C-alpha cells in the first residue's frame, strides 16, 4: 500500500472530471486539477524515475519547481520533451508520460549497476577514472559514457508548435502570487500603478492553500479568488503558469508563460509558450521559500518527500502520499504538518525531531491525535529500495551531534522531511545582490538591492503567514513610493486570520545525520551528489563554493541549488571548520527553471529566422530559371539553368558569353553609401589606402579600406559626383559594417570633419554590362547619353536615360572585360534591366549569376571576401601598389609591423591543375609527396577561357614560387591534386581587354 486519494478535499481538484492518462504505457486515472505527480501518487505509484548517475530508484520528492527526482519524458512524437517535472505538469486527458534513464524497464534497470560501482563515480570521476589513465582509455570509454550520460531523450523531429515573444512595460512587477505577492499586487494596484503579477503555478495562491486557515472567514481559495478579481479590476495583469526565470540589467526580466502546456496540444493559432521581456520600474520579489531536505542515509528512497510537498498534495489535490507516514523535522513545521495531515484523515505514525522539546501546544495536539512524538531523535536510515518500507529512528544528542541507541524501527511508506526553509534568492542574486546568511533561518536571504526591487514574505525570510501578508502590503507600498505614488493605501486591510497553529518554522541547525551502514546520503538528488562527494571535494582542494559546484556538479541542471545549495554549504563549512556565511554561496545565474529553446526563438524560425532581401529584378531572375542563393540577407542568382543543363554547364556558358560577346549581371546588392560634405574628399582620403582627395568630378576609383590593425577590411569604388559628394560602393557582405566604420570615424575620431554619410543601398538598383560588345549594347539602350570612349573613358561616369528612367553609368570592370555599371532608381530596376536585355538581343546578351561572376574574377585574380578573410594585407593580395606613400590613412602605420613584412608571409598566387582534376577549396598546399602546409586554397573554378581547373591560393613566399609544382591536399576526401603555381592573374594580364 502506498499513496491513495483521500475521500474529500483538494482545493485544485474537480472530482467531477476524471481524466485518463498513461505512465510508461500503463493506463491510469486522475482528475482535472491534478498534476502528473499528484495523479501518480493517488494511483499508488511510488517509483517514477531513475537517478542521474547511479540509476537509483526515485519517487516524487516535491510538489512544485523544486522537484529533483520525478523528471519524466512528456508526450511523444515531435512533441516529446525530456526532463519535465511531474509536479509542474498539469494533468490533461490523454497525457502520455514515460520514466527516464532506465533500461529495459523502470523496475529493472541494468544501469543500476552504477550504484554498485559507485566508488568509480565519485566527484570528478570523468577525469580520474577515464581521462587520468591516458588518452586511449578515454577514447575507448567515451562512447559508452556519452551513451550512459544524461537523463531523458528529446526528439529529432521538428517542433510542431508555435512560440511567441512579447514585451511588457509596467510600474510594478510582482514575482510570485503567494500571500505576500497577492498583498503587494493589491497595494500597488490600489496606488493606481500598472501592475503585472506573475506566478509559475496554474493557480496563484502559493502556500496559502496549505495553511489550513481562514482569511476574513473565507477559505484560502475564496480569498485568493477575491484578491485576484480585485487586482484584475484595478487593471493589473495576472500571468499564471508564468515562470520569471531571469533578472537582467536595468530591471528587465525574462519570463516564460506556459500558454498551452496544460493541454494535449495547443488550439489552432495558439502558441505553446510565450516569452515575456518585462521592463519594470520596480520589482517585488515574492518568490517564497523551498523546504530543505535533510541529509541522512538512504534519504533518496522513493517515498521520502519534503513535508511541505506531502501537505500540498493533500490540501491541493486530495492525495495521501502514504498509508503510513513518519515525519522527520528540525522545526515545528513538522509537527504542524503531521497535525494537519492527521486532521485530513491520514495515518501519521510518528514525528521525529532532533530537539529536546518542541512547541508544547503542538506536542499536546500530537498527543491528542495519538501521534507518537520522538524528540532528541533522528531518522538515521531508511529501509526499502524501490519503495520505502520503514525507517530507523535513533537517539541523537543535539549538542555533540552523536547518534544514540535505536529508538524504534517503524514500518512506513512515506517519510516527510523538513530541514527548514531556503528562501528563493535566485532572482535577487542574478540581479547582483550577494545573498546574506540569516542565523535564525540557517539559510541565505537576499542582500542589498542593486536594482530597483523589494523583497517580501518567505523570500526575505518571513515564514509565518501573518508576517508574509503584512510584508507583502509593505512591499506594495514601497514599490508605489518608488514609482512616485506617495499616498499610503490604508484602505487595503490585512485579512483576519483564524485557525493558525502554534510553533515556529525556524530550524534547529541540523543539516545531516551521521552515516549508518554505508548507505549514501544525498545532497543533490538531481545530480546524485552525496555528502561524501562534498567531503571529497574539500579533501582534494575544491573547497571554495564555486569549485565545489563545478567539481561535484552540485546545484547544476534542473535543481539550480533549490534543494541542495544550503545543505552543501553547511557540510562544506563543517568540513573546513568555518561558518556557513564564511563559506558563502555561489552567484545564481539564470534561469530559475529550464527555458525551452522554442520560447527563446519565438517566431524567428525557418523562413522567419532572418529577413530576406530581394532586388527589383528578383522575379525576372526566377522566371528565367535562375537558381537563387543567399548572399547575406540578399537573394542572388547563382546561375540561370536552361532545361537539360547542369549548374556547371550553365556557369560555363554564361562566363564564356561575357568573354566572347556580352553579359549582364544584377549588382543591386552592392552596398552604396552617399558621402556628402565639404570634407568628403579628405574623409575618404583618410579611410582608403589610395588617394581620393584629388579624384576629379566625374571619375570613379577602386579603393581598399584597412582596419586600424592594418588588415584589409573592404574594397569597392568611390564615384565623385560633385566636389562635395561621393557615391561609395562596398561589397554586399560589408555594406552595414562599412557604414558603421564611417560613422565611427566621423563621430568619435574626427568629429571636426564636415561630412554626412547615408546608406543608399536600396535607393539604387544596379546592373553590370560586361563583354567586348558591352558598349554597343549600352549605347543602343541609351535614349540619352554617350558612352563612347571619349565621353566615358575607363573609370569615367556619365548620366543618361534608359526606358525613360534616368541612369548613372560608371565604366568599371570586375570581369576584366569592357564593362559598365548602370545605376537607376530602385523601383525602375526591372524596366532598365529589361531594356538592356532587349537592346542586347542582337548581340546575344546573356544574363549571368554568381558562379560565372566568380569564374570571371578568379581568372583575373580579383579578390573577394574569400581572400579578404580578416588575416590578409594589401601586400598579401598583390595590391601593395595601392598603399599610398604620400599620405597617412587608417591602418597605414600598423602595416609596417614585422610580421606584416615577413618575406615568408603567404601571398596570393594562382594554381593550375596539372592532372585535369578539380582543385578543392580549402585544400592545403604541400610539396609534391606531402609535408607541412605551405598555404591554402581560397577559390576554385573551371576556367572556360583557359580550359583548365584553376584556383587562387595563399602560398608562403609565393611571389618567388611561380612555376613551381606543388600538391593541393584535401585529407578529408583523401585527395591530392598536382598543381603548378602561377601569377594570380590568369587572363589578359596587361588589362588590354577593358581598355578599349
Amino acid at each position, binding site marked *: 500500500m502506498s499513496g491513495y486519494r483521500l475521500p474529500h478535499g483538494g482545493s485544485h481538484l474537480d472530482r467531477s472530471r476524471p481524466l485518463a492518462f498513461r505512465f510508461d504505457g500503463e493506463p491510469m486515472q486522475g482528475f482535472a486539477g491534478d498534476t502528473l505527480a499528484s495523479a501518480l501518487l493517488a494511483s499508488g505509484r511510488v517509483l517514477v524515475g531513475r537517478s542521474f548517475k547511479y540509476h537509483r530508484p526515485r519517487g516524487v520528492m516535491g510538489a512544485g519547481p523544486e522537484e529533483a527526482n520525478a523528471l519524466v519524458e512528456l508526450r511523444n512524437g515531435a512533441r516529446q520533451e525530456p526532463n519535465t517535472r511531474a509536479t509542474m505538469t498539469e494533468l490533461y486527458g490523454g497525457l502520455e508520460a514515460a520514466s527516464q534513464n532506465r533500461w529495459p524497464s523502470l523496475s529493472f534497470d541494468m544501469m543500476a549497476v552504477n550504484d554498485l560501482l559507485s566508488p568509480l563515480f565519485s566527484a570528478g570521476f570523468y577525469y580520474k577514472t577515464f581521462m587520468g589513465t591516458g588518452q586511449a582509455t578515454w577514447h575507448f570509454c567515451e562512447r559508452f559514457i556519452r551513451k550512459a550520460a544524461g537523463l531523458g531523450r528529446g526528439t529529432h523531429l521538428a517542433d510542431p508548435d508555435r512560440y511567441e515573444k512579447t514585451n511588457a512595460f509596467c510600474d510594478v512587477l510582482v514575482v510570485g502570487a503567494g500571500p505576500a505577492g497577492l498583498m503587494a499586487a493589491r497595494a500597488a494596484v490600489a496606488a493606481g500603478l500598472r501592475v503585472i503579477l506573475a506566478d509559475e503555478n496554474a493557480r496563484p495562491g502559493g502556500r496559502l492553500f496549505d495553511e489550513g486557515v481562514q482569511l476574513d472567514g473565507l477559505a484560502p481559495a475564496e480569498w485568493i479568488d477575491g484578491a485576484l478579481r480585485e487586482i484584475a479590476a484595478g487593471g493589473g495583469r495576472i500571468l499564471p503558469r508564468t515562470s520569471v526565470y531571469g533578472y537582467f540589467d536595468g530591471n*528587465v526580466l525574462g519570463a516564460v508563460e506556459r500558454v498551452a502546456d496544460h493541454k494535449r496540444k495547443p488550439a489552432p493559432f495558439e502558441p505553446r509558450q510565450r516569452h515575456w521581456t518585462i521592463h519594470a520600474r520596480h520589482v517585488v520579489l515574492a518568490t517564497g521559500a523551498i523546504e530543505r531536505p535533510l541529509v541522512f542515509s538512504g534519504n533518496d528512497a522513493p517515498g521520502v518527500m519534503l513535508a511541505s510537498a506531502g501537505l500540498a498534495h493533500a490540501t491541493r489535490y486530495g492525495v495521501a502520499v502514504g498509508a503510513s507516514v513518519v515525519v522527520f523535522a528540525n522545526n515545528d513545521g513538522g509537527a504542524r504538518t503531521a497535525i494537519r495531515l492527521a486532521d485530513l484523515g491520514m495515518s501519521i505514525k510518528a514525528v521525529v525531531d532532533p530537539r529536546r522539546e518542541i512547541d508544547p501546544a503542538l506536542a499536546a495536539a500530537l498527543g491528542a491525535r495519538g501521534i507518537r512524538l520522538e524528540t532528541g531523535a533522528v531518522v538515521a536510515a531508511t529501509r526499502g529500495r524501490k519503495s520505502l518500507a520503514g525507517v530507523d529512528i535513533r537517539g541523537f544528542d543535539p549538542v555533540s551531534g552523536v547518534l544514540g541507541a535505536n529508538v524504534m524501527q517503524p514500518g512506513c511508506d512515506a517519510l516527510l522531511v523538513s530541514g527548514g526553509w531556503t528562501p528563493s534568492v535566485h532572482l535577487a542574486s542574478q540581479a547582483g545582490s550577494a545573498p546574506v546568511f540569516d542565523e535564525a533561518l540557517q539559510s541565505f536571504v537576499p542582500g542589498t538591492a542593486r536594482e530597483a526591487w523589494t523583497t517580501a514574505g518567505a523570500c526575505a525570510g518571513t515564514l509565518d503567514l501573518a508576517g508574509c501578508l503584512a510584508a507583502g502590503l509593505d512591499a506594495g507600498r514601497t514599490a508605489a513610493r518608488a514609482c512616485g505614488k506617495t499616498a499610503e493605501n490604508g484602505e487595503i486591510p490585512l485579512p483576519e486570520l483564524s485557525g493558525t497553529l502554534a510553533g515556529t518554522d525556524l530550524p534547529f541547525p541540523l543539516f545531516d545525520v551521521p552515516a549508518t551502514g554505508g548507505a549514501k546520503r544525498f545532497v543533490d538528488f538531481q545530480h546524485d551528489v552525496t555528502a561524501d562527494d562534498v567531503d571529497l571535494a574539500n579533501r582534494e582542494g575544491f573547497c571554495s563554493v564555486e569549485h565545489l559546484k563545478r567539481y561535484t556538479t552540485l546545484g547544476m541542471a534542473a535543481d539550480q541549488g533549490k534543494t541542495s545549495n544550503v545543505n552543501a554549504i553547511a557540510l562544506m563549512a563543517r568540513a573546513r571548520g568555518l561558518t556557513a556565511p564564511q563559506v558563502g554561496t555561489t552567484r545564481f545565474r539564470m534561469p530559475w527553471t529550464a527555458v525551452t529553446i522554442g520560447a527563446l526563438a519565438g517566431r524567428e524560425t525557418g523562413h522567419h529566422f532572418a529577413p530576406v532581401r530581394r532586388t527589383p529584378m528578383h522575379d525576372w531572375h526566377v522566371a528565367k530559371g535562375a537558381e537563387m542563393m543567399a548572399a547575406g540577407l540578399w537573394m542572388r542568382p547563382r546561375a540561370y539553368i536552361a532545361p537539360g543543363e547542369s549548374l556547371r554547364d550553365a556557369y560555363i556558358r554564361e562566363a564564356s558569353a561575357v568573354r566572347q560577346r556580352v553579359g549582364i549581371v544584377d549588382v543591386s546588392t552592392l552596398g552604396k553609401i552617399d558621402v556628402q560634405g565639404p570634407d568628403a574628399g579628405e574623409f575618404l582620403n583618410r579611410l582608403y589606402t589610395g588617394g581620393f582627395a584629388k579624384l576629379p568630378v566625374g571619375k570613379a576609383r577602386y579603393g581598399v579600406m584597412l582596419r586600424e590593425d592594418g588588415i584589409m577590411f573592404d574594397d569597392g569604388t568611390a564615384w565623385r559626383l560633385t566636389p562635395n559628394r561621393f557615391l561609395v560602393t562596398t561589397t554586399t557582405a560589408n555594406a552595414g559594417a562599412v557604414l558603421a566604420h564611417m560613422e565611427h570615424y566621423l563621430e568619435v575620431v574626427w*568629429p571636426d570633419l564636415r561630412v554626412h554619410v547615408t546608406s543608399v543601398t536600396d535607393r539604387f538598383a544596379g546592373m553590370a554590362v560586361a563583354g567586348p560588345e558591352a558598349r554597343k549594347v549600352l549605347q543602343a539602350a541609351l535614349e540619352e547619353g554617350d558612352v563612347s570612349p571619349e565621353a566615358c573613358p575607363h573609370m569615367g561616369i556619365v548620366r543618361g536615360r534608359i526606358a525613360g528612367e534616368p541612369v548613372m553609368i560608371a565604366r568599371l570592370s570586375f570581369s576584366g572585360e569592357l564593362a559598365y555599371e548602370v545605376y537607376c532608381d530602385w523601383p525602375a530596376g526591372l524596366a532598365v534591366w529589361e531594356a538592356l536585355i532587349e537592346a542586347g538581343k542582337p548581340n546575344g546578351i546573356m544574363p549571368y549569376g554568381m558562379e560565372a561572376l566568380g569564374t570571371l574574377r578568379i581568372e583575373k585574380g580579383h579578390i573577394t571576401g574569400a581572400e579578404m578573410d580578416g588575416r590578409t594585407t594589401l601586400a598579401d593580395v598583390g595590391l601593395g601598389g595601392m598603399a599610398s606613400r604620400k599620405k597617412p590613412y587608417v591602418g597605414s602605420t600598423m602595416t609596417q609591423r614585422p610580421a606584416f613584412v615577413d618575406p615568408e608571409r603567404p601571398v596570393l598566387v594562382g594554381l593550375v591543375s596539372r592532372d585535369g582534376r578539380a582543385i578543392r577549396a580549402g585544400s592545403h598546399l604541400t610539396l609534391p609527396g606531402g609535408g607541412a602546409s605551405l598555404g591554402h586554397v581560397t577559390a576554385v573554378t573551371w576556367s572556360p577561357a583557359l580550359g583548365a581547373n584553376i584556383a587562387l591560393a595563399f602560398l608562403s613566399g609565393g611571389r618567388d614560387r611561380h612555376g613551381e609544382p606543388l600538391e593541393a591536399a584535401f585529407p578529408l576526401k583523401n585527395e591530392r591534386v598536382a598543381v603548378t603555381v602561377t601569377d594570380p592573374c590568369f587572363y589578359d594580364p596587361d588589362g588590354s581587354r577593358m581598355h578599349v
Partner: protein
Amino acid sequence: MRIHCPCCGPRGVAEFSYGGDGTVRRPDLSVTDTDAHVAYVFERENPRGPHVELWHHIGGCRHWLRVTRDTLTHEITSVEMAGRFAGEAARISGAGA
C-alpha cells in the same frame, strides 16, 4: 539592459552595438610611431568600477554614444553623444523607465 540614448530615449540593448573602450584616443594622423598605434589598437585597461564605453545606436539614430557603465554592478550612470553633439547627455531616470 537598457541604454538611455540622448537622442531616442531609453531603448533595449538589442538596438545597440558595442564599440569598445571609450577612453582610448586614436593617435593623430601625422603620428607614424607604430608603438602609439599598437597602444591604441590593442592595449586596454580592465577597470573594476565605472568605465567609459562606446556604443553605437545602430538600430536607432545611428549616433555613437559615450556610456559610463560600472563593470562591477553594470549600472549606467551617464550617456553622452560623441562627435559633433558631444556634451548632449541623457537624463537617466529610474531604472527601466
